[in-house]
Structures are given as C-alpha cells and as structure tokens.
C-alpha cells in the first residue's frame, strides 16, 4: 500500500430511519433487543402478491422531524427518509455548513431507483391509458396540464440530492450513485475519497431507498427473489440458514457526517470511528449473482483491507451483505474464507438483514452506521433466525444473540444486482490514534 501521508476521515455524526426505528438510537436498541421490523405489508393491500411481507418504516411523519414545509412538498417516501436521517446526522455531528464553508461541504448519496409514486402511475393510467395502451393523441393534448411543478420535480432521480443541498446549504462536490444494493456502500467509499483527495473537508454521505410499492414488490416477486414466508414474517429473513428462501424487502435511510480527522479533533468533535478504507469491485458474472467462489466480493474485501493498511488478523467484525438468498450467502461465505483464510473462523460475521430486511440502495449506509455503533459500544448484533445451520455456511454468524466484544476494526459488505461490490472498513478512534503515533 501507499506510504504517502493522507488525510484520515472521521465519522462524527450518524442518523438513521429504518424498519426497526426512526432514528439511530432506537434502531440500535431494537437490534440489540432482538426485535424484528418485518411484518405483513401495511401501506397497501398485499393479498394479491406472492410476497405479502416487508420491513416497512413505521409511524414516520417527516414533518415532525424536518421543519421545512417548502421542501417537503417535493418529497416521496424515500427522499423524506433521507431528509430525516441526514438531519439527525448533522445535528449529531455538532457542525453544519455555513456561508464560509458551504463549498467545502460535499454530498454523496446512494439513492433508490423508484422515483415515480404508484398513485401517480394510477392517475396516469386512468387519464392517458384507460384501456392499458397509451393514447398518444390525448397525452400530447392534455399532458402539459396533467402534471404540476412539484410533481415533476419530486420524481427526478436527483431530487433527493437537490433537497439535501437546500436543507443544509451544501454547495461543494455532489454525487448521486446507483449500483442497486451496493449503492450505499459505494457512496461511503466515494465520500471518503473526496476528503482524502481534498475536494471536500466535510461530506454528508449515505443512502436512501424504498421499493415497498406495488410495482417494486411485483418487480422482485417476478424474479422470485423474495421470501414468501407470509405466515411467519419474523422468521422470513434467515441469512446463512439452510432453509433460507430469499430476502425481505426493507426501506429507510442512513447518513453519516464525515470530516477530516485533524479538524474534527481540533474542534473537539466526538469521533465515532475512522472510515479507513474501501474496496469497490465488479463481479462480472451474472446480473443477479456473483460466482459461487466469491470472485468479485473477494477483491472488494481485499482492496478495503489494503486501502486501510489492515491485515486479515486485525478485523473483528463483518457486517455481511447476508441477504438470505441461497446464492448470496454461500458466495459471501466462500469469499470471506478466501480472503481471511484461517482467520475467517475467528471473526464475528452477522447479517442485520435478518431483523430489518434488505434496504437495497440504503443497505450499505445503514449497515455502515451499525458497524460504527458496534465499535463505539463494543457489541455486535446477531444474525436472527439462524437455527438450521447450512453445512456450506460454517462461519461464526453470531446466531445466539448480540455479543459483547471489543471491535477495533469492522468491515461492511454490500453486493448489488449488476455485480457491483462494496466493502468499507471502519476503525476505532483508539486504533487510529495508536497507528498515528506508531507512524510518527
């Protein structure tokens, strides 16, 4: 690895909206209390769908947590989650953009792909496709009057980005990335590189998504990717279990405030962890899977370790991608074994998707925050519902319950449809400071 001195990146603020809690403390407590966020879908009648369960955000009212009525008219559910989680992260960090620092603040978001609301699609169909085919004559005549300005604005792929710029006054480097389930992890990695490279001193970074809509649910059901264990929602997500049958769709958002380590120290910020390395790779095997050998994820984890200057023996905890599909969990297990060798069996590996489902573009960001909290509190969350071990998945998945253990280095894996992989590595502040002294 490169020996040149580079800026270390500190995590100084965190925020989450998840299926198990509408902020970071309540999400963390629910995970450690072994709660599940998975239930029968409440936001629409799911009885005609093969999968009728999901991990929905519950009791969330954005207006109660984000006082910006003018902006809220441009939100759809997942951008509202983003505003709330980002608000919490900024508040938690104790710093925010000012006129003087605005252009030194960056934004990186991994954002979801479902920008059109179902209700809008229903109205479009009723108005312009009464018999199921688009009536182009009518669309040309009436289309301009059909849509309002906020309605047009809220369905852009960049709207979450625009709302976050405006809400917090961010005016520097800004990126909106989408590599499906790897989006959140890649966003954190890019944000780290922005600070390292000097393009920003502070970055608000995270992910936000919701595909729990009638269109999103059918899209995944058609691929038979979802668990249809409708009678046992709490047990439906069983990562690494022999009886696993697919993932459970979740929704939510998570953000972090990242900043230059030295300046965070100087302002007396509470530093949760160092975001110390990232590995970003492409599996290039099949659109929905990596090779069972773990090729692709293997490179991502190796490069994250190299980038952070850590060896396999240094890692204490991996927050796995662990979706509860046959292919992912096997391939990920094989990848961990390939990278860590003997050390693979000394690691704690767990999948919080067992409790909160798969948050797709938000997953990597949420699970990154969980790694940070594991470091702070010296406890790692469990893999719930792992009761029938799979002989091919034979790592220590923390099935018995949350485990108290020191965590100095934690790795978060996210692998996406399309083959993009992200591994991001977090290090405890103590270890970072210790290494700084050793180098000096």
């Amino acid at each position, binding site marked *: 690895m490169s020996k040149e001195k580079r800026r270390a990146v500190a995590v100084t603020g965190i925020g989450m909206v998840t299926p198990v809690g509408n902020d970071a403390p309540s999400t963390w407590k629910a995970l450690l209390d072994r709660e599940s966020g998975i239930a029968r879908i409440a936001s629409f*009648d*799911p*009885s*005609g769908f*093969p999968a009728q369960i999901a991990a929905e955000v519950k009791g969330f009212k954005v207006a109660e947590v984000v006082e910006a009525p003018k902006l809220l008219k*441009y939100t759809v559910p997942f951008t509202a989650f983003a505003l709330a989680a980002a608000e919490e992260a900024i508040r938690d960090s104790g710093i925010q953009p000012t006129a003087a620092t605005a252009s030194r603040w960056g934004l990186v978001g991994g954002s979801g*792909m479902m920008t*059109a609301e179902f209700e809008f*699609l*229903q109205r*479009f*169909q009723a108005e312009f496709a009464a018999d*199921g*085919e*688009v009536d*182009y004559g009518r*669309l*040309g005549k009436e*289309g*301009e009057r059909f849509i309002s300005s906020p309605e*047009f604005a809220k369905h*852009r*792929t*960049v*709207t979450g*980005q*625009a709302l976050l*710029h*405006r809400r917090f*006054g*961010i*005016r*520097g480097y*800004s*990126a*909106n*990335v*989408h*590599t*499906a389930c790897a989006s959140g992890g890649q966003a954190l990695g*890019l944000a780290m590189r922005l600070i390292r*490279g000097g393009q920003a001193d502070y970055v608000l970074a995270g992910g936000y998504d919701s595909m729990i809509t*009638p269109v999103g649910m*059918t*899209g*995944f059901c*058609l*691929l038979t990717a979802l668990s249809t264990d409708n009678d046992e929602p709490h047990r439906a997500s069983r990562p690494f279990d022999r009886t696993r049958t697919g993932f459970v769709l979740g929704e939510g958002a998570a953000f972090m405030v990242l900043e230059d380590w030295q300046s965070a120290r100087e302002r007396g910020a509470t530093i949760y962890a160092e975001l110390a390395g990232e590995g*970003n*790779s*492409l599996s*290039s*095997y099949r*659109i929905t899977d990596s090779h069972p050998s773990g*090729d*692709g994820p293997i*490179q991502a984890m190796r490069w994250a370790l190299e980038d952070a200057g850590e060896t396999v023996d240094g890692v204490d905890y991996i927050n796995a991608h662990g979706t509860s599909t046959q292919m992912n969990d096997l391939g990920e297990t094989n990848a961990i074994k390939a990278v860590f060798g003997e050390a693979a069996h000394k690691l704690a590996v767990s999948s919080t998707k067992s409790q909160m489902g798969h948050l797709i573009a938000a997953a990597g960001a949420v699970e990154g925050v969980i790694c940070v909290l594991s470091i702070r509190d010296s406890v790692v969350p469990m893999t719930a519902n792992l009761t029938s071990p799979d002989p091919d998945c034979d790592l220590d998945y923390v099935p018995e319950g949350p485990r108290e253990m020191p965590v100095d280095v934690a790795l978060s894996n996210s692998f*996406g449809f*399309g083959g*993009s992989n992200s591994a991001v590595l977090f290090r405890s502040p103590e270890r970072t400071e210790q290494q700084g002294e050793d180098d000096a």
Partner: protein
Amino acid sequence: MHRIVVTGFGCITATGTDVEATWQAVLAGESGIQPVSSWDTTDWKYHLAGEIKDYQPRTLVSDRKLLKVISRQDVLGLNAVDQALAHSGMLEYRDSLEDPTSFNDRTGVFVGSPGTKYRQQHDYLQSLAEAGENISVFGSEAMDQVHPMWLLRTLPNNVLAYTGIGHGFKGANENVTAHGISGAQAIAEACRYLEAGAIDRAVVVGYDSVSESEALVYYASMGLLSPRALKPFDRDRDGTILGEGAGAMVLEAKDVAMERGARIHGEVLGTSVSAEGGILSVREDGEGLVRAIRASLEDAGRKPEEIGMITAHANGSKPSDASEALAIGEVFGASSVPVTGFKWSLGHTVAASGVIEGILTLSSLRERRVPGIASLENLAPDCSDLMVSADEQSPRSSLGLLTTRGFAGLNSCVVFSTDVD
C-alpha cells in the same frame, strides 16, 4: 498522481452511428433534431427530438440474447462501449497477455446513467387498467402480465453490469445518476480512481434516451422545451430539445497506455463538480458554474488564459444560457476564448451529453476547428460577451473546457488537452 489519457472513444447520436459521422454533421451545420418518429405526434406542439435514426437494436449490440433483458437506452450505451473498446485496442492487448487476471481487476467501469425511464412504467399500464383501484387485483394481474425480467430490464446500472459481464472487467466502478452532469461526472469519477492508482484503465460511458413521450409533455409543462429549434445564446431562443444517444471513452493511466503502445488521443487534465442549490432551475448569476470552472482549472493546474476553447452546456434555455454566459465572462473575461456547443445538432442528451460532447471537444482540439453553432442567428444581448459564432472558429490553444449542467443545481466541468507530451 497519475496522468490520464484518452485512448479510445465511440458514440451513437441523432446525427450518426459513430464519432466521425457525428463530427462531420456538426462541421456541416447539420442537425439531427426532427419530428419524433417513435410514436404518433400528430397535433403535438412539442414534437421535435434528437432521436436515433432508424433504430435497429439487433445491429447495435453484439450479443442479441441481451436484448431480452435490457432497454433502449442500454442498447445505445453498450453500442458506444463496443466502439470505444474497439478503437482503443485494449482487448487485443489483453488477449496477448499470458494471465489477464490483473488486467481485468485493474479495469474500471464508470457510467453516467439516466436512471429509470418512463417507458418502463408502460409495462404496468395493462395491469393497472384491469385492476382499477384494487391493488390486490393489480398484484395478481401484474404477476401474470409483466415480463419476469422486468426489474432487470429496468436497472439503472445495466450498462455498467453488461460492460463488465461482456468483457470480464472487475475493477472499481460507479454508476452516476445526476441528470445533465452524469457523463462529465463519470469522467471525473474514473479519474479519481485512476489518479489514486486503484485502477489502470477505465471504460467511461454516458447514455440516455430522454426523448420519451411523457418527458416531452412534462418538460414542456415546466417551460423547458422549444417547439421550434434549439438556438443556444440566440436572442430568440426559447428552450431546449430532448434527444438520445451515448458516448464512451477509454481512459488510461498515461504510463500504462505508453507501455502497451496505445495511440493517445488526448489527456484529461482536470475535473470538477459543484452544487448551487436549485431544484430544477439554475442560479441567474451562474455562481455554481463559476466555481465549477475554477475548480476544474485548479485541478488541471492551468490558468483561464491557457484554455483554447470552451464547449458550453448551451442547451438553448433562456436562464441557463444567460447564466452560463455570465459565468464564462466572469472567469475568462469578455470575448476572449472561442465558445461552442453541440446540443443544437444532437439535441439535449442529458446523462449522455458530457461524454459525447467531451469526445467532440477532443475532435475540435485535434483538428483545430471549433465548429459554429449553425442555429445561431442573432446573438442575444445577455450572451453578447461570448465569442460564439454560426461560423467555424480556431482554438487558441490545444486545451479545451467542457461545461455541463443539470437539475439539482449541478455543474460539472472537464479540462481536456490534445497536446500530450
């Protein structure tokens, strides 16, 4: 820090199926903007677009099986990638290696993507029609009627995924969905990983198919479109015109490109992105663009007077062109550097525009010809400080600046050079 060179490119646009045809059309003052042919636009007021002519997907992608699992915009993106790879000769080089593992691990893919499209929603209209308000019925209807691969066809990262699967690249990757700056930002992001030494080469591609039926009426509803012509910086400009297309470049660390004896077509000297705070609209004073231009020059280590030409965003919108003229004037001074744009010829290809227009900037620098803006008749008073013309100009150096802008108040710039020592 590694220097980054361009070793291959390709594009498909409203005016041609490759870079040469697209470039010659620009030089000849030809535009690909015509009445829409993809659907019946009888009685449509906003009926113009820069569509791909005679779209034949089976001739555009080499793997025909792919057509079942990708959408129209993906076909365009993958076609541009194939062209750029062939132009670069990098696959032949890989085939000459005893073990290509390291080559593949150190090849990245960076994409400017439009995100999801309106036409993909059409697949659900039949189920909606049959279900009415009943979502439960919708669920069972959709399970019967919608193609099982619908979600995969709709993925915003299909071009990224199939570029990897098709060629075995396994390095760093990003899929940027940032409206009009997506293409330029994809170049910037590739440079980030190249400069850091995390990869040796990258395929960069921007693609879009903006000219969809709903897009035309909705953009028009927002006052963004012209029903007549795309006339950048003109007194009578009244909006942009949407298009479709794709452009791709192969970028390599200079030492790596030299080592394999690659032909070098230019260098990327600097990049930038800035946010100015808007939701859909641009700031009238061009403040965000000024910062983006300055940041790209700083990144390139160059001064404004060294820039030989500017490829402006030039989308024909009243506020965007005026604020762009202000920003260029503020950084470069009045009438000091030749300015052009290409959207009058290609239409606004949004997520693709940065890469396509970057390639045409390299053509301009290489041939020392800054094409005229053929639709420009009367320079607008609020753009009068710009050195723009309907006629060809000459660049004053071998350095070119590309500016791009998008919704969310985004600006992104790239500084290119064709004088690679």
